[in-house]
Structures are given as structure tokens and as C-alpha cells.
């Protein structure tokens, strides 16, 4: 090392000292907003009078949700045959809708758990709503597997409860793994969401108590569980939150991996592939971020939250959508490559059939929505155009639903035996039941934005410029 310092040789190719330019960190709360502004802004959404648009949306959402209720009542009263399943397609919209909804939830968990562990501070303003989205999506997802068993009062057979029939679960079946994966996922998501809510519920309790609204002070106070914001509370809170983030992190990967096993563990051509777990997880996060954008952009516009959900937040979400969407596109290509390279005639036929067979229209929709749509997010001008981003996010949702439909319907409709080939069309009951789940989801989400703080106030305050102890100084 010392040799070259005093020598007269030309300057070394490596600089003696590297002084990289310090890139300014994007500001996460615009306009240098103060702590009290943040509290007033977010609590104001709950404390203010119920807006007319909320009632209109709520009424519509209830009407839509009634389709699911009616569909389910009809199914339970009549039998599972009211859905359009028939040989050879015995899994159809029920499992498509299940995977669609459960996939959407994954963005919430990714934002709350993985981004928390990776210290991605931009997660703070979207994580609460995204976690709510996760829970409500799991609720919608759970409807389908629970009711597709037909006699729903026997759904407890799914759990290993000792009984006088000696019925015991087949633990070698991925469908049984699914039961545990999804119920664990639901439980942990609710806990994570609730723990995060506690400090904010205490804020609301105090604010309602200050204006003398005893009922709401009592209600928020009950769920705040005596939070006083003491040092000890905060230190316990941080630890609980970290542990839950640690538990949730593997769930982001495991839940959809197990969902993909429902297919990959079988022997059906087009399902029996090792690429399924990563492909499904990427797809789930892709669809989830699509849904987060679909939900957050209108909220941002309606409540004027531009200082809290900044352009930087939207950029980040668009980039994750782009990355995961591109992984999904790669997986589509790789499936075809392996079908050809693996030289299995059934696999080869399945993929040719998938793209050019009877469901070619669904395949075309899937590819155009999932592969082409996210590529727009390469362009800053697109990411800056909120309306366009929102429209693209809808295409992502549509595309990801069709992905599941394509995988499930095409493989089953054309399996090994040509004599049993068929074509699947959904029954009207199935269509209504699925349509209604958007209402169920909307009802829950509307209640959430009306009665709970849609952003974690305490966490946002921690990422404001004022909260930075080095503000205005060197970052060393």
C-alpha cells in the first residue's frame, strides 16, 4: 500500500479518497408539517361529520355485498351444485377467487413486516390501510373454501379436533396445509394490525374525552388497553411490533407458497411445476400492490393526504409493482420454455392449449394486463400521473384474477384423457357470489376509514424531518 504513495508514477486508477455525492433523502412528510398537524389531519377524518360520499359508497357497497350473502344462502340451502363446477373442471371460480383475494393480502404483510425489518421508512403512511386491506382480503378469501365444502356445518372437519367419528385430517395434503397457512396468516395479520393501532387508539380516546364524547372515548379507550405512552409502554410496544414483524416475514413467503402447492403437488400438466411457489408469491405481491394503489390513490385525493402519501411513496409502490410484475412475466416465459425444454408431450400440449386453445381470450387478457401494464411504470411521467397509475392498478387486479383462472381452468378442461375434456362456464350464482365479495371488502374498508385512523400517526411523526435528531447537520 505504501509503495505507490511517494512514487513518481502516474496517479493510480483508484482515487485516494472517495467522496460520493450525498443524495438527498426524499422527504416523507411534505411541507415540513408539524406533529399536531399530522394528528389533527388523521383524527379529523374520524372526528368530522360523516361525508355524503361515504354514505353513498356505503349504501352501494352493502347492496353489492348482499349478492354474496344471497349467493351463499342459496348455496347452503340447495347444495354446492349451484356453482358451475362439473367434470372435468371441479375446481373453478371458488379456488380462483380464493387465490385472488388471498394474494391481494400479501402486499399488506410485505409492507408491514418486510419493509419494517428493512427499515423502509416510506411504509409508515401506507401500512395501516394496507394491513386493513390484508385482513379484509383474507375474510373475502375465506368465504370460498369454507362454503365450497357444501355442507358448511361440517367445515370443522378441517381442524384436527378429537371426535367420536375418529375423523382425522390428511396431513399429507396441501389443502390441509392451506387451512393452517391461511388461519395463521389471518391471526397474525389481525394481531399485527391491532398492536400497531394501540397508540393511535389512545390518541383518539384522549381527544374524544377532551371534547366530552364519553361513548367514543370509552370505546377507543377499551381497545387502547390503558395505553399512556410511557417509556415502558413504548419499549414493550416496539418489542411486540418487532416480534410480530419477525413472525409475519416468513408468512409473506409461506402462505402463497402453500397456496401454490395446492396445484404444484398434484400431477396435472400445467400445475406440476417447481416454479410455482416463487411465481405465486411474486404474483401475490404484484396484485397486492395493485390493490394498495387502487385503494390509496382515491383516499389520498379525497382526504387531501398529499403531504403524507407523497409522490415518493407512489414511486416506491409503482417500482415494486414493476419489479414483481416483471418477475411474473419472466415466470410466464419460463413456463413455456420448460414445457418445451422438458420435452413432456402433455406439458407441451397444455401450454400451447393455454395460449391458443379454448381459453385464448383469458390468456391474452392475463398477459396484456400482467406483463405489459407494469412496464409503463418505468417512466417517471407515468408514475407522476396519479390518474393513470390508478387506471393501471385496476388492470393489474384484473390481470391477476385472470392469471388464476387461466392456470386452473385451462389445465383441468384439457387433462390427460381427451374423452373427459370439457369447457367450464360459471353459473350465475358463482358470478354473483364473487361480485358480492367486492361489496363485502368495500363495506369493511369503508367502516375502517370511518372509524379507525387510516395512518399510524405515531410512526409518521417519527419519520418527519423534525424528528430527525441530525436535522440540518451532517449524517455521520
Amino acid at each position, binding site marked *: 500500500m505504501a509503495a505507490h504513495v511517494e512514487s513518481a508514477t502516474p496517479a493510480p486508477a483508484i482515487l485516494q479518497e472517495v467522496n460520493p455525492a450525498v443524495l438527498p433523502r426524499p422527504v416523507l412528510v411534505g411541507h415540513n408539517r408539524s406533529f399536531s398537524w399530522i394528528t389533527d389531519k388523521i383524527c379529523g377524518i374520524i372526528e368530522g361529520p360523516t361525508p355524503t360520499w361515504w354514505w353513498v359508497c356505503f349504501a352501494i357497497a352493502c347492496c353489492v355485498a348482499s349478492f354474496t350473502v344471497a349467493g351463499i344462502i342459496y348455496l347452503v340451502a340447495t347444495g354446492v351444485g349451484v356453482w358451475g363446477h362439473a367434470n372435468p373442471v371441479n375446481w373453478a371460480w371458488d379456488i380462483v377467487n380464493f387465490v385472488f383475494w388471498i394474494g391481494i393480502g400479501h402486499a399488506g404483510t410485505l409492507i408491514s413486516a418486510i419493509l419494517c425489518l428493512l427499515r423502509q421508512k416510506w411504509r409508515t403512511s401506507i401500512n395501516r390501510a394496507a394491513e386493513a386491506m390484508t385482513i379484509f382480503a383474507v375474510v373475502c378469501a375465506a368465504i370460498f373454501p369454507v362454503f365450497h365444502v357444501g355442507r358448511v356445518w361440517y367445515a370443522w372437519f378441517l381442524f384436527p379436533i378429537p*371426535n*367420536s*367419528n*375418529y*375423523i382425522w385430517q390428511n396431513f399429507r395434503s396441501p389443502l390441509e396445509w392451506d387451512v393452517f397457512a391461511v388461519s395463521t396468516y389471518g391471526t397474525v395479520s389481525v394481531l399485527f394490525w391491532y398492536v400497531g393501532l394501540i397508540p393511535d387508539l389512545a390518541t383518539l*380516546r*384522549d381527544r374524544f*374525552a*377532551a371534547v366530552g364524547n*364519553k361513548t367514543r*372515548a*370509552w370505546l377507543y*379507550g*377499551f381497545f387502547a*388497553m*390503558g395505553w399512556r405512552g410511557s417509556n415502558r409502554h413504548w419499549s414493550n410496544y416496539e418489542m411486540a411490533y418487532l416480534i410480530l414483524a419477525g413472525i409475519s416475514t416468513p408468512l409473506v413467503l409461506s402462505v402463497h407458497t402453500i397456496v401454490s402447492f395446492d396445484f404444484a403437488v398434484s400431477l396435472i400438466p400445467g400445475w406440476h411445476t417447481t416454479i410455482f411457489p416463487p411465481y405465486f408469491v411474486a404474483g401475490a405481491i404484484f396484485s397486492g400492490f395493485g390493490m394498495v394503489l387502487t385503494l390509496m390513490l382515491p383516499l389520498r385525493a379525497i382526504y387531501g393526504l398529499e403531504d403524507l402519501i407523497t409522490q415518493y411513496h407512489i414511486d416506491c409502490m409503482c417500482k415494486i409493482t414493476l419489479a414483481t410484475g416483471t418477475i411474473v412475466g419472466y415466470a410466464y416465459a419460463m413456463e413455456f420454455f420448460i414445457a418445451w425444454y422438458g420435452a413432456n408431450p402433455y406439458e407441451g400440449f397444455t401450454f400451447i392449449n393455454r395460449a391458443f386453445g379454448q381459453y385464448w381470450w383469458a390468456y391474452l387478457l392475463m398477459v396484456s394486463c400482467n406483463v405489459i401494464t407494469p412496464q409503463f411504470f418505468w417512466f417517471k411521467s407515468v408514475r407522476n400521473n396519479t390518474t393513470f397509475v390508478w387506471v393501471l392498478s385496476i388492470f393489474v387486479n384484473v390481470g391477476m384474477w385472470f392469471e388464476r383462472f387461466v392456470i386452473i381452468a385451462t389445465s383441468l378442461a384439457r387433462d390427460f384423457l381427451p374423452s373427459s375434456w370439457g369447457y367450464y362456464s360459471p353459473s350465475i350464482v358463482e358470478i354473483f357470489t364473487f361480485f358480492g365479495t367486492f361489496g363485502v371488502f368495500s363495506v369493511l374498508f369503508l367502516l375502517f376509514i370511518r372509524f379507525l385512523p387510516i395512518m399510524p400517526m405515531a410512526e409518521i411523526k417519527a419519520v418527519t424531518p423534525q424528528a430527525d435528531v441530525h436535522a440540518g447537520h451532517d449524517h455521520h
Partner: protein
Amino acid sequence: MSNIFPKSANKLPLQIVIYLVVLVGLATAGVTYYMTPKYTRVGYAPVQPVPYSHALHVGQLGLDCRYCHSNIEQSGYANLPTAQTCMNCHSMVKKDSPLLAVVRKSYETGESVPWVQIHQTPDYVYFNHAVHVNRGVSCVECHGKINEMEVVSHQKSLSMGFCLDCHRNPEAHVREKADIFNLDSPTIATKSGTEAGVKFVHDWKIKPPQSCTGCHR
């Protein structure tokens, strides 16, 4: 600002946990005891149109089961006797007893005596009576000691778990061919040890099905 909650609320979380544990424990115990076939079926002893006593006919007089239930070795369904069977004796014994009026009427008209069924397999269960009787399963295994009953009652749970107990370990339940209708006889396993039971199951090629389709066809 006054407190919203009284000081006693501090104990609430613990109280809720304790109540939940107690409640769930009670519910589990209640369901286990009151809602399983061991409670819902065992002890069912309906009043029959004729006060027929198995204790008298079988226990004291030594009637064989097959005298009345004549097809149980040949038929998948265990039959009840016709009034003709009763009248074989009762045309002479106690021929004017008012308790037998229903039997005499049945004999004259040909209408069946309206016996109340006690042991019943559900519609979704395939059960062949003859197969069991011919493969070392004595009456007493499922029906209990009928020969001691004044009024027949449901003795065993006949739950799916009850069936599987025997289908999984037939060696503990089988009897010699000669002992099938002797309700006081011991099983081979109690008489000669488990090895003898296993040998009987092997020699008689007893292969009770354990797959779903064995019974739910």
C-alpha cells in the same frame, strides 16, 4: 380530565382470560359428554308394543338368537321374527295373555307388529350383518348382553370410532365360531391370549376395511 375507566379495569384482561378458559373448558367438556353418541344413543330403550323380555326367553329358557332372528347369518339385514314365530309357542303357552294381544292380531291380519327400531346404521353407512356374524363378531360386541335385558336398550355408542376400534384391532374382539351366539362367552384374546386372537384373524382371513369407501360407498 377524569379517568374513563375505574381502577378495577386494570384487572379486566386477566379476568377475561380466566373467564374464557373456564368457558371454553366447560363448552368442550359439555360437548364431549352431552353431544357424542356415548350420551345421545346409549341407554335408548323405547317402550315396545309387546313387553317381550330377552332375559326370560334367552337368559332363562335358553332360546338361540337365530330362532327368532333367523336370517342373520345369511342376510345383510338382521330380520325381526314374524308373529308366526311367536305363535309357535304362544298358541299353547300363555295363549290368552292380554300382553300378547298385539301378536295374536298380527298373526290373524298379517300386519307386522309395530316394533320400535333401536339399533340403526345411518343411510350413508353400508353395513352387512351376515359378514360380521360369520367372521367371528358376536352379537354381544355391538348389542351388549341382550340375554340379560328385560327391555332392550342401546348399550354401545355405535359411533364411527366404535366401528373403527374393532376394524383396527379385530384380534381383541373376535370369538370362536361356536361362541358367536353365546353372549356370555369370552373373546379368543381373553380366553387364550392376544396371539391366539391374531392367529384367528389371520386364519379366517379377517380383513376389516379401514378406507372411507369400505362403509361409505
